[in-house]
């Protein structure tokens, strides 16, 4: 029997059991779509993290305080308050730290912002006028607050694009932050979401005002220091200078016992990349398992089909079908179920890739490689799981098969 005719026969077999064929196909469809979508979401998330980190600038360093130790239990990084304004002035010394261009101390907390028309709770950061430069951000309207305003504990605020839009506030408006009136002096240019945090949903106020109204605590203590190196090529020496200076001012001789840690955009990028990769592998594994389950579904339905069509198999054998003809017929049926499922799965994934970003604000980047792999694996799964049922069909003795009820 020619392959084309076997194919035709196989198709007739599948169309003879339409509902069953469709349900089996669905199993593969969801498996393939799940694999493509999870890999797509992982890829999109990695892309956006990388883009976000690139937008941070490669010359940003962040100094976080070390962790506290209480009753022998080490707290998380950043749980201690070891960074002070003294550190800030030390790092600003052009003599000791020639490669550090700017230093911005940061405190942050959460507060409710109320405008004339709306309100929202968001992250409020207190910093100095260097905040804009160290974060590599820019303004779309107004100006950033000045060093004088920081010293005067001025009640002025620079809003992120999302916050400004939510509040319906423009430059010159009044908004209330934690119950105190602030004047909006500027709005930041949007840089988009990183997938983890939204950098546009933010309010920045003078450090001194933030310590008074939001975070409390000693006016000398800050939560983080943002440093920008004079250029991306001097980031290594800026790192060394900051490390050296902070060890000195904190009177620490053993670098391993440092009560602070310094991270750069590069280390952020590699951490983010490994987190994203791990998540993607995890999700894709779950999706791959569902593809496997779909394959077992194909095998199951082919076994049912062989059992149910025993008489047909016997008849075909009596009429001259060889074991090979039947093996091929059932293999083609199994492979077709999963191949069609795979192709429809790609369609479903493309549809999801179009709809999900619009409905759920999750980016999906569908690339050709996982699509091809998923379809090939799906067809392969069908073939592999179809072999056993097909071999059973081929092995049936014609008389036993004809007599079956």
């Amino acid at each position, binding site marked *: 029997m020619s392959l084309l005719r076997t194919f035709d026969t196989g198709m007739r077999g599948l169309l003879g059991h339409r509902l069953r064929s469709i349900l089996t196909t669905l199993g593969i469809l969801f498996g393939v779509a799940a694999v493509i979508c999870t890999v797509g979401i992982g890829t999109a998330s990695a892309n956006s993290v990388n883009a976000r980190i690139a937008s941070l600038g490669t010359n940003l360093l962040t100094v976080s305080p070390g962790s506290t130790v209480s009753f022998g239990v080490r707290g998380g990084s950043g749980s201690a308050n070891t960074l002070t304004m003294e550190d800030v002035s030390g790092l600003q010394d052009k003599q000791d730290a020639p490669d550090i261009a700017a230093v911005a101390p940061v405190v942050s907390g959460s507060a409710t912002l109320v405008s004339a028309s709306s309100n929202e709770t968001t992250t409020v950061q207190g910093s100095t006028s260097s905040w804009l430069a160290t974060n590599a951000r820019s303004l779309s309207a107004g100006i950033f607050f000045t060093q004088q305003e920081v010293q005067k504990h001025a009640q002025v605020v620079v809003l992120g694009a999302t916050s400004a839009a939510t509040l319906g506030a423009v430059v010159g408006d009044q908004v209330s932050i934690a119950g105190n009136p602030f004047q909006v002096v500027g709005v930041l240019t949007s840089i988009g979401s990183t997938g983890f945090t939204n950098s546009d949903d933010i309010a920045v106020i003078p450090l001194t005002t933030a310590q008074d109204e939001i975070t409390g605590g000693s006016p000398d203590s800050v939560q983080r220091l943002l440093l920008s190196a004079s250029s991306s090529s001097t980031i290594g020496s800026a790192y060394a200078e900051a490390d050296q200076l902070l060890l000195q001012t904190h009177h620490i001789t053993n670098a391993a016992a440092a009560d602070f840690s310094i991270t750069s955009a590069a280390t952020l990028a590699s951490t983010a990349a490994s987190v994203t990769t791990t998540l993607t592998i995890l999700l894709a594994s779950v999706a791959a398992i569902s593809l496997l389950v779909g394959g077992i579904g194909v095998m199951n339905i082919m076994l049912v089909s062989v059992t149910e069509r025993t008489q047909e198999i016997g*008849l075909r054998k009596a*009429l*001259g079908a060889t074991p090979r003809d039947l093996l091929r017929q059932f293999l083609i049926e199994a492979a077709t179920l999963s191949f069609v499922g795979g192709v429809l799965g790609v369609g479903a994934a493309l549809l999801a890739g179009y709809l999900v970003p619009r409905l759920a604000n999750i980016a999906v980047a569908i690339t050709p490689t996982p699509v091809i792999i998923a379809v090939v694996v799906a067809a392969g799964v069908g073939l592999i799981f179809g072999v056993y049922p097909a071999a059973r069909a081929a092995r049936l003795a014609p008389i036993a098969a*004809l007599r079956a009820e």
Partner: protein
Amino acid sequence: MGAEIIRLVDVSKVYGDGDAEVRAVDGVSLSVKDGDFLAVMGPSGSGKSTLMHILGCLDTPTSGEYRFAGEDVSGMNERELASIRNRRIGFVFQQFHLLSSMSAWRNVELPLLYRSAHDRRQTALNALAQVGLTNRVQYRPNQLSGGQQQRVAIARALVTDPTMILADEPTGNLDSKASREVLDILIGLNKSGHTIVLITHDPNVAGVAERVVEMADGHLQDRVAA
């Protein structure tokens, strides 16, 4: 008449061994010539079904020689037997064995799928015309009466122009009127030169054959046609 189609020499089929040994067919010899119309009779359990399976190349004998149209089939493998069945034998079964998802002509076409054949549709339609079902070619089996279904099955047996038509209780599931139609078709086919072997337990059915043999306890004996 013509050449020898079937030659069985001391053929036995044994199932099981030791105390459980069953000699379903025990030392049977038989000769059928081209153009013959033979009926094999016998009650159930007499071994006539086993004999039919051996004659139809659906099973191979445990011992003895079986030559079909000059070819020794006793030692053939499954693939060679499939080829013999496809080229040489047309089957008609008691339960019709039509595929319910296919139209009449698709059912008749089936054996042609397992050989190289041109104009399969036309060949199938010709066979259906021979059994008088030209106006039923697109019908599904469940839209046809029992007699019509068996006629479709006969068309399927005819379509390959086989050396022999092997009919196993072809009227077993039919009423007397439909039985008569089916037997008339078989008689007509024999008249036009087809070799027919008919397996039945019914003496009236066996009566249409030129020659009747009887199976009993695995042995075969000739009996004068009524």
